[in-house]
C-alpha cells in the first residue's frame, strides 16, 4: 500500500502486537432501532467497553458513545439499509433499500478513524450496479483523504442460494479488492473457501461473528479478526477477546 494516511489509521485498530482486531458494530440500530435481541447488550455495553479495538458507529452515535468508549477508535458507517428488517422487524420491508447517509469527506469532523459501507450482493443488476458505483466513489474519496475503507459483504439477495453462497462471497471479495477497499468483513463461509480467498485477497479479511464459536472459527482459519454485533452476548465478549488476541 502506498498511502501513509491509511497505514497509520489502520494501525489504530489492528493491534500492533498481533496484527489482529476485534470490532463491535452498533450501527444497525439506525435501521432497526433498539430491537429486543440487542437491548440487553446495549444496556450493558459499559461492562465491556475496553474489550474492542474499534467500534462501527453511525455518525450520530459517535457523540453519545465517545464518553462511554473514551479513547476508542471509531469507524463511521457511511450508509443505511433496511436489509436487517427482514428478520423480525415490526414492519418488514417490501423492497430492499440502500442509501448513503454520510459523505466520506466528513469523516474527520466526526473524529472517526475509518469508514465502512455495505455491499449488498446477489440482488438485481440495478442494485448491484449502484452498489459498485457507490463503493467505487467512496474508495476514491477515501484514497484521497487517506481514510481506510472497510466493506461489509452481505450476500443476501434473491440470487444467492445455499449452493452459491460461499462462492458469491469470494466473487464479491475479489471485486471489492479490485475496487480498492482496504478491509473486508465477510459472513461465515467454509474453511476451504476462506483459504481459497486468502490465496489472492491480499487485504485483511475479518469474519462477521456473533458467538465465541464463530470467532474461533475465523481466527483458526487465519483471519486477522472479527466484527461482532449487538446480538453477541456480553458474557462471551471477554472470551472472544482472548480468542482473537491469544
Amino acid at each position, binding site marked *: *500500500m*502506498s*498511502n501513509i494516511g491509511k497505514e497509520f489509521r489502520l494501525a489504530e485498530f489492528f493491534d500492533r502486537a498481533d496484527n489482529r482486531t476485534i470490532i463491535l458494530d452498533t450501527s444497525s440500530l439506525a435501521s432497526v432501532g433498539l430491537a429486543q435481541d440487542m437491548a440487553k447488550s446495549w444496556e450493558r455495553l459499559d461492562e465491556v467497553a475496553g474489550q474492542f479495538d474499534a467500534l462501527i458507529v453511525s455518525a450520530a452515535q459517535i457523540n453519545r458513545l465517545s464518553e462511554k468508549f473514551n479513547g476508542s477508535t471509531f469507524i463511521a458507517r457511511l450508509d443505511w439499509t433496511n436489509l436487517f428488517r427482514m428478520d423480525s422487524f415490526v414492519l418488514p420491508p417490501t423492497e430492499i433499500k440502500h442509501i448513503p447517509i454520510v459523505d466520506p469527506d466528513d469523516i474527520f469532523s466526526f473524529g472517526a478513524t475509518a469508514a465502512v459501507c455495505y455491499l449488498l*450482493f*446477489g440482488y*438485481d*443488476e*440495478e442494485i*448491484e*450496479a*449502484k452498489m*459498485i*458505483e457507490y463503493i*467505487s466513489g467512496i*474508495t*476514491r474519496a477515501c*484514497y*484521497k483523504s487517506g481514510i481506510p475503507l472497510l466493506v461489509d459483504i452481505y450476500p443476501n439477495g434473491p*440470487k*444467492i442460494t445455499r449452493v*452459491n453462497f460461499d*462462492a*458469491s462471497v*469470494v*466473487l464479491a471479495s*475479489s*471485486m*471489492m*479488492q*479490485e*475496487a*480498492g*477497499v482496504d478491509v473486508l468483513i465477510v459472513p461465515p463461509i467454509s474453511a476451504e473457501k476462506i483459504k481459497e480467498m486468502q*490465496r*489472492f485477497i*491480499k487485504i485483511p479479511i475479518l469474519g462477521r461473528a456473533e458467538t465465541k464459536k464463530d470467532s474461533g472459527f475465523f481466527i483458526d482459519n487465519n483471519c486477522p479478526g472479527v466484527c461482532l454485533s449487538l446480538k453477541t452476548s456480553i458474557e462471551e465478549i471477554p472470551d472472544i477477546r482472548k480468542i482473537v488476541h491469544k
Partner: protein
Amino acid sequence: MVVPAVGKKVRLNRIFNPQDQRALCVAADHGWMTDPTDNVINLSSVLKQVIAGGADALLVSFGTAVRYSHLLKGRHSPALLLRADWMNLPRLGMGGASDSNILPAQKFKQVTAAKAEDALRLGASGITIYYFIGYSDEFEARNLEDCARFASDCRRLGLPLIIEPIATGAMVTGTNATELLIASARIAVEIGADALKIPYTGDVDSFARLVKAAEVPVLMLGGARSETPRDALELVEEGLMAGAAGVVFGRNITRAKDPEKMVRDISQLIHSNKSVDEVLKQPGPFRLKTNQKLCTGCRICEMQCAFFHNGAYGQLLTARLKIQSNGNGNKIFFCTLCKKCIEVCEQTALQIKPDIGCIELDKDKCNGCKKCVEICPMQVVLFSEAAQKPLFCDFCNGLPQCAKWCPEGAIKLLT
C-alpha cells in the same frame, strides 16, 4: 489549449513506443468484473512476468493500480492505464466469456467507477472505458453521455482516452456485427477517443476498413483465450496486417502457461515486424555452459563441430571450440559471449544475433582486420584465409553439436 494537448502527446508516447508508434498493452482487470479465475488469483506473479516480458502498458482497476503501484515504478515500467468503468457483461453470458458462473446476471449494467482526475492522481498514462452498441438505444445513449464526459475531462487534463467499442446485445446479428464495429469505432473517435481498444472483426479487409475509418491508433483486443499460443499470435499478425497499432491482450497473456514468453513473442510481432513462423521457430537465445571436471578430453565436440561446419570429419583445427589437455586435466575453450570482439570491431560488423544469441558477422562491413581474432580470450575466433573473414561460433544455427554429442554432459545448452 496547448498544455493539455501536450499532456496527451507525452502520455500517449508512454503507451505507444515513439519509435514505431505501436503498443503491446496487457489487460489485467478481469477480477473487477468476472469470477476469480487463475489469472486473478495469481495476479501478483502474472503482473511480474508481464512486466519482465516488456509490455508497453498495463490496464488495471483502481484497486490493483494502488496495490501494485510498486511494480509500476521506474522509467522502464509499463505505462498505467486505468479501467474507469465496471460492467457485468461476462456474467450475462453474452460476452463470449465462459468463466463467469458464480453469479449470473440477467440485465446488462455498466457504471463509471473512476474519474479522469483519479487516474491522473495515480500517475496513469490513460484511461479506458467501454462503449456498448447494440444492446438498447437508451443504454447506448447513456453510455455515450459518459464517454463524452470522460472525453471532456481528459481534454482538460491532457489525459489520453481509450474507448473500447463493443457490439453486443439483441440488436447485433451475424450480418451487422462487423459494420456495427466499424461504425462504433468512428463514433468513439468523434466523441473524443485518442485511441481505440476494439475486437477483431474476423478478417483483414474489414479490420483494415475499421482502422482506416478510425483515424486514431487502433489496439486490437484479444477476447476469450485462444486455443493455442499460435492462434493468439496469428490474431495479432492479422491485426497488424490490417494496420492496427498493437494490441490490448488479457487472457491470452495472463492465462498463458508462460505469460512472460507470450509477451515477448507478441512484442516481436509488434515491434520487430517478425512473422508468427519466425517467432515460433526461434529456439534461442542460447548460452553454452561447461563443466570442465566432466571433460575427458575425447574431443568428440571438436569433431562434430568441424563436421557440422565443413561437412567432413578430421579437420579439428576448424572447430569453433577447443579442448586443451595437460597434466592438470582438460579445459574447454568456447565462446562465452564476452563481447570483446564486438567492442574491438571498428567496422561495427559484429552484433549478437537476437534469435539465437551467438555472434553475427555482417560480411559487407567486415574488412578482415583480424582484431576480433586477436582479442578473443578463448582463442576460438577462427579466420578463413579463403574468404578473408573471421569465423565465429554460431551455435550450429540453434543446435550446438558440441552439447548434443558430448558423452559426459560436460557441455550443456542453456536457453
